[in-house]
């Protein structure tokens, strides 16, 4: 499963709600305002990710917000091509709107 989250963890529960149901082997991709959760200063929410869940962030959205230099450890930055590859690699996609 690829989980997609697009909301800031400071403003919405979406990322926490997603992580509470993610399982080993799943991937979580942060896009749009959710990219702030991938920065060193706001990484607390992602720390709740279960073991075996891979974490990704969409770099175009990180760059747009001036956060490209703030990427926390353990999170892989991908471009839109990488987003597409994640969709293809996982058997299904769930957006946490």
């Amino acid at each position, binding site marked *: *499963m690829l989980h997609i989250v697009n909301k800031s963890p400071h403003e919405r*529960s979406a990322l926490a*709600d997603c992580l509470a*149901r*993610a399982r080993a082997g799943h991937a979580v991709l942060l896009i749009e305002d959710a990219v702030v959760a991938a920065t060193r200063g706001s990484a607390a929410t992602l720390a709740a990710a279960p073991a075996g869940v891979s974490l990704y962030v969409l770099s175009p959205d990180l760059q747009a917000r001036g956060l490209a230099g703030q990427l926390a450890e353990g999170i892989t930055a991908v471009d839109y091509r990488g987003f597409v590859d994640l969709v293809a690699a996982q058997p*299904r996609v769930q*957006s*946490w*709107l």
Partner: protein
Amino acid sequence: MSEGVTKKFLFVNRKAPYGSVYALEGLEVVLISAAFDQDVSLAFIDDGVYQLLRGQDTKAIGMKNFSPTYRALEGYDIEKLYAERESLEARGVAEGDLLVDVKVLGREEMAALMDEQDVVIGF
């Protein structure tokens, strides 16, 4: 309709009703899906459990009360309704407060249910 393909569909309801149209328009997709002979389930998690409360009365806000539609789902052969125990408890909602029979699953069972679907659409 689509050359006899049957997929497992899960519609995940995570939002309270009336504040946004997602619950209502999500239900419209569910009803349409019945015509396609798919294996359809509905999950109510997080604020989505509020959609199922008895006693909704929308007169004073001038909006349509669509909650009776959940009871009508059975007539469309949509019978797999699940609510998450942790979501109910966090909101102080008891199973007896719900307007339709649902199967209550623990969070781990709910995650397992999500994990066995072909298509997951959230509203």
